[in-house]
C-alpha cells in the first residue's frame, strides 16, 4: 500500500507535466480538447494526492514504522488524534497536505468556473498546474513522505522480522505539538496560504487572455476573502498557541516563521480593498494585480523560508546536507520556482500594461478612492518593511559574514507608526464620499467620533496622571511608547465610534425608507450590504486587536516567587496561596505511559475574594525525558490575564517557584480574532460566484 502512495505522487507529477503542456497548447491554439485534457489532469492530480494522504494516514494509524515519516512523527503510545495530526507535523507530510489543499481548491475553482469563465481557463489552469507540479516535484523526488526507514546500520526496516518490528516504538511527535491548537493551526494557516493561489491564477489568466471586462473577478475575490480570513484566524491561533503553550507570556515575536504568514496576509488585505475600488470605479487595476501577485509569491516565499534553513529562527528547519549539489538543494529549488512565477507575473503585467490603465483620474485627495489608496499603500509598506527586515540578514551575511538578529526591537518601532496610520485611515475611509472630497462632507459625520476619540484620550490621560510619579518616571523612560499608546487609544475609539455611527445611520435609513421595521432594521445593513458590514465587523475586530496589543505590550509585568504549600504571596493585583504541590508516580516507565506530571494547586485572590483556582504544571513526555514541558494556567478576564507557570520545583524541599505574568487586555486579541472570523463569514455570505 505504501508503494501505491509513493507511485501516486509520481503519477500525479507526470500528470502535472503533461497538464502544463496541454494547458499552454490550449492557450495558443484555443483547442478545447487540450483544455479539457489539462482540466482532467487537475482532477486526476486531486484524486491521486488525496489517495496518497489517505494512505499516509492509514500508515500513521496502524504504526507502520517501515516508513521514515511515520517513525519520526509517531509512536505506538501516541494518542490516535495526534497520529492523525502528525500528517502535518513534519516537513514531508506538511508539503503533502499543502499539495492536497491546493489540488482540492484547484479542482473546485475550475469546476465552478468552467461554465462562465471558460475563456480564461487555459492560462489559469496552466498556472495552477505549474504550482501543483512544483510541489509534486518536491514530494516525488526531494521530500517524499513514503520514503522507507533505515536503521542506524543502514538496514531497511521493511526487511525486519516480525519480532524485530515489535521492538520498534517510533520517535513520536514533539510534545509541544500535541495539543488542540497545534492540531488546527497548521491546517487553517495552510488553507489561507494555499487559498491565495486561486485568485492569483485567475487574475493572471484574465490578464493573459486580454480580459478587458473586470466583472468576472467576483470569483477571484471570494477565494481571496476566504484565504485572507482563514489565514488571519490561523495567524491569531498561532499567537494564541504560543501564548498558552510556550510559557514566555507573549504571543508574537516577529519570528521569521510568523512573518512568513503575516506577509501574504497583509498583501491580501491590501488586495481586498483595491479590489473594491476596481469593481466600483474600474481604478487601481495595476495595484490589484500587484497585491495578489505579492500575496502568492510571499506565501511561497514563506514556505521557502521555513524549510530551507537559511534564516535563524526558533522554528528554523533542517540545514541542507552539504553534500547535496546546489541545484538540488531544497531552498534553491524553491527559489527557482519563485523566480519563474515572478518573471511570469511581472512579465505579463508589463506586456499587458495597457489593460491595466483605467483612464480615470482621481478627482480629490480626500475622496473615498484616495483613502482606499492610502490605506492599501500603507499596508503594502508594512509588508515591505517586514520583508526587508526578514531578508536583509541574508544579504548582510553574504556580504559581511556576520549574522544579524532581527527581533521586536527592530520591527516594533518601524511598524507601529505605520499601523497607527492604517487604523486612522481605516476609520476615515468609512465615511469618505465618492469622487469628491471636501471638508463639509466630513465635518458632519466625523464630529461625534472625534469627540469619542478625544474623550478616550482624556480618560487615558486622567488614568495616567492618577498614577502619579510612577507614571511620569515610566513615561520618561519610554516616551514614544506612551505617545503611541495614547494615539492608539484615541484612534481606536474614534474608529469604533465611526463604525457604530455608520451602522446605526444605515439601519435608521432602511427603516425610514420603509424597507424594514423598527427592530428588524438592525439586521438591514447585513442583509442589504453584507460585504460592507461584514467588513466593518472585521474592522471592529482589528480595533480590538490594536487595543489588546497596545495595553498588553506596554504594561506587561513579570513576577517570580518561590513558595511552599500554605504560603501566600502577592503577585501584582492578586494574592496567590499555594495549596499543594503534587506529582504523578515519578518512577513510572515513560515508555509505558505517555506522560508524568508535576503540578501546583494555586488559589488566586483579588482583595478578599477567591477568583480562580489555577494548576500550572510540568509534564515529562516520553519523547523528552530530561526536560518537562510547561502547562501554563491562566485566569483570564477582559481586563487582564493572570498567567502562571511552574518555573521551577524542588521535590526534596517541597517548594515550587511560581512564575507569573500580568498581561492587561490580552483577551481583546482573541476577541478580535473571533470578530475577524464572524465578519469574514458575513462578507462571504453572497455565496454565488466561486
Amino acid at each position: 500500500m505504501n508503494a501505491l502512495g509513493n507511485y501516486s505522487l509520481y503519477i500525479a507529477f507526470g500528470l502535472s507535466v503533461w497538464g502544463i503542456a496541454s494547458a499552454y497548447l490550449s492557450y495558443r491554439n484555443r483547442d478545447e480538447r487540450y483544455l479539457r485534457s489539462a482540466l482532467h489532469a487537475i482532477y486526476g492530480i486531486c484524486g491521486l494526492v488525496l489517495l496518497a494522504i489517505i494512505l499516509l494516514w492509514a500508515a500513521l494509524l496502524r504504526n507502520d514504522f517501515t516508513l521514515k515519516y511515520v517513525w519520526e512523527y509517531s509512536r505506538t503510545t501516541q494518542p490516535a488524534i495526534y497520529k492523525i495530526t502528525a500528517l502535518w507535523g513534519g516537513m514531508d507530510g506538511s508539503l503533502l497536505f499543502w499539495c492536497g489543499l491546493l489540488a482540492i481548491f484547484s479542482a473546485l475553482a475550475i469546476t465552478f468556473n468552467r461554465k462562465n469563465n471558460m475563456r480564461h481557463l487555459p492560462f489559469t489552469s496552466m498556472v495552477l498546474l505549474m504550482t501543483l507540479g512544483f510541489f509534486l516535484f518536491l514530494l516525488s523526488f526531494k521530500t517524499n513522505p513514503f520514503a522507507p526507514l533505515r536503521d542506524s546500520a543502514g538496514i531497511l526496516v521493511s526487511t525486519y522480522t516480525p519480532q524485530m518490528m515489535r521492538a520498534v516504538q517510533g520517535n513520536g511527535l514533539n510534545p509541544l505539538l500535541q495539543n488542540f491548537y497545534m492540531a488546527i493551526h497548521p491546517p487553517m494557516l495552510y488553507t489561507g496560504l494555499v487559498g491565495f493561489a486561486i485568485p492569483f491564477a485567475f487574475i493572471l489568466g484574465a490578464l493573459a487572455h486580454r480580459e478587458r471586462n473586470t466583472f468576472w473577478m467576483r470569483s477571484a475575490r471570494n477565494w481571496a476573502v476566504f484565504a485572507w480570513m482563514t489565514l488571519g484566524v490561523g495567524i491569531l491561533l498561532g499567537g494564541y498557541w504560543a501564548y498558552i503553550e510556550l510559557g514566555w507570556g507573549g504571543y508574537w515575536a516577529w519570528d521569521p516563521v510568523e512573518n512568513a504568514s503575516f506577509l501574504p496576509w497583509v498583501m491580501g488585505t491590501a488586495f481586498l480593498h483595491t479590489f473594491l475600488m476596481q469593481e466600483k470605479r474600474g481604478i487601481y487595476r495595476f495595484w490589484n494585480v500587484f497585491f495578489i501577485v505579492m500575496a502568492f509569491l510571499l506565501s511561497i516565499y514563506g514556505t521557502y523560508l521555513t524549510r530551507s534553513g537559511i534564516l535563524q529562527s526558533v522554528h528554523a528547519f533542517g540545514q541542507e546536507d552539504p553534500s547535496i549539489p546546489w541545484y538540488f538543494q531544497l531552498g534553491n529549488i524553491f527559489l527557482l520556482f519563485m523566480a519563474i512565477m515572478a518573471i511570469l507575473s511581472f512579465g505579463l503585467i508589463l506586456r499587458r500594461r495597457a489593460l491595466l490603465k483605467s483612464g480615470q483620474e482621481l478627482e480629490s485627495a480626500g475622496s473615498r478612492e484616495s483613502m482606499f489608496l492610502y490605506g492599501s499603500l500603507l499596508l503594502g509598506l508594512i509588508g515591505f518593511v517586514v520583508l526587508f527586515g526578514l531578508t536583509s540578514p541574508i544579504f548582510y551575511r553574504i556580504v559581511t559574514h556576520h549574522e544579524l538578529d532581527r527581533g521586536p526591537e527592530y520591527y516594533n518601532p518601524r511598524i507601529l507608526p505605520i499601523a497607527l496610520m492604517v487604523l486612522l485611515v481605516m476609520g476615515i475611509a468609512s465615511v469618505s464620499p465618492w469622487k469628491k472630497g471636501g471638508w463639509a462632507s466630513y465635518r458632519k459625520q466625523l464630529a461625534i467620533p472625534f469627540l469619542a476619540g478625544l474623550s478616550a484620550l482624556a480618560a487615558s490621560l486622567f488614568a495616567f496622571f492618577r498614577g502619579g510619579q510612577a507614571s511620569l518616571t515610566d513615561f520618561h523612560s519610554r516616551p514614544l511608547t506612551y505617545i503611541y499608546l495614547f494615539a492608539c487609544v484615541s484612534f481606536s475609539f474614534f474608529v469604533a465610534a465611526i463604525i457604530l455611527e455608520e451602522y446605526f445611520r444605515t439601519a435608521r435609513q432602511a427603516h425610514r425608507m420603509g424597507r424594514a421595521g423598527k427592530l428588524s432594521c438592525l439586521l438591514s445593513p447585513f442583509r442589504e450590504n453584507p460585504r460592507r458590514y461584514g467588513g466593518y465587523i472585521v474592522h471592529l475586530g482589528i480595533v480590538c486587536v490594536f487595543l489588546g496589543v497596545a495595553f498588553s505590550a506596554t504594561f506587561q509585568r513579570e513576577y517570580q516567587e518561590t513558595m511552599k504549600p500554605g504560603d501566600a504571596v502577592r503577585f501584582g493585583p492578586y494574592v496567590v496561596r499555594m495549596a499543594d504541590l503534587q506529582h504523578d508516580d515519578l518512577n513510572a516507565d515513560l515508555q509505558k505511559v505517555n506522560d508524568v506530571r508535576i503540578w501546583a494547586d494555586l488559589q488566586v485572590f483579588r482583595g478578599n475574594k477567591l477568583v480562580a483556582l489555577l494548576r500550572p504544571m510540568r509534564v515529562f513526555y516520553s519523547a523528552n525525558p530530561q526536560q518537562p514541558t510547561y502547562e501554563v494556567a491562566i485566569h483570564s478576564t477582559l481586563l487582564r490575564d493572570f498567567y502562571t507557570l511552574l518555573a521551577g520545583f524542588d521535590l526534596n524541599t517541597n517548594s515550587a517557584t511560581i512564575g507569573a505574568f500580568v498581561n492587561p487586555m490580552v483577551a481583546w486579541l482573541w476577541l478580535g480574532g473571533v470578530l475577524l472570523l464572524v465578519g469574514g463569514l458575513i462578507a462571504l455570505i453572497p455565496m454565488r460566484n466561486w
Partner: protein
Amino acid sequence: MAGTLLSLVVAVAAFGWVLAPLFGEPKEISQARSTDQIQEAVNRSVRELKTDLELQKIQASDLEEIQSFLESESKR
C-alpha cells in the same frame, strides 16, 4: 508487489482519462461571457452606490456618471 501492480493500473487509468479528450472532435474554446453574472455584478455595485446616495456619501450626478461608466464597461 500488489501495491506496484495496483499503481500500474492507476497510472494507466489516470493517463488514459487525461489523454482521452485529445481524441475528440476539435472545438474552439467558448469565448462566451456570462452576461448574467456580469449584469448581476453591475446591478449589485449600483445598488450599493444607491444606498450610499441615501447616506449622503455620493452626489446624484456622480452616481449617474459612475452608473453609465459601469454599464459601458460591462459591455466590453
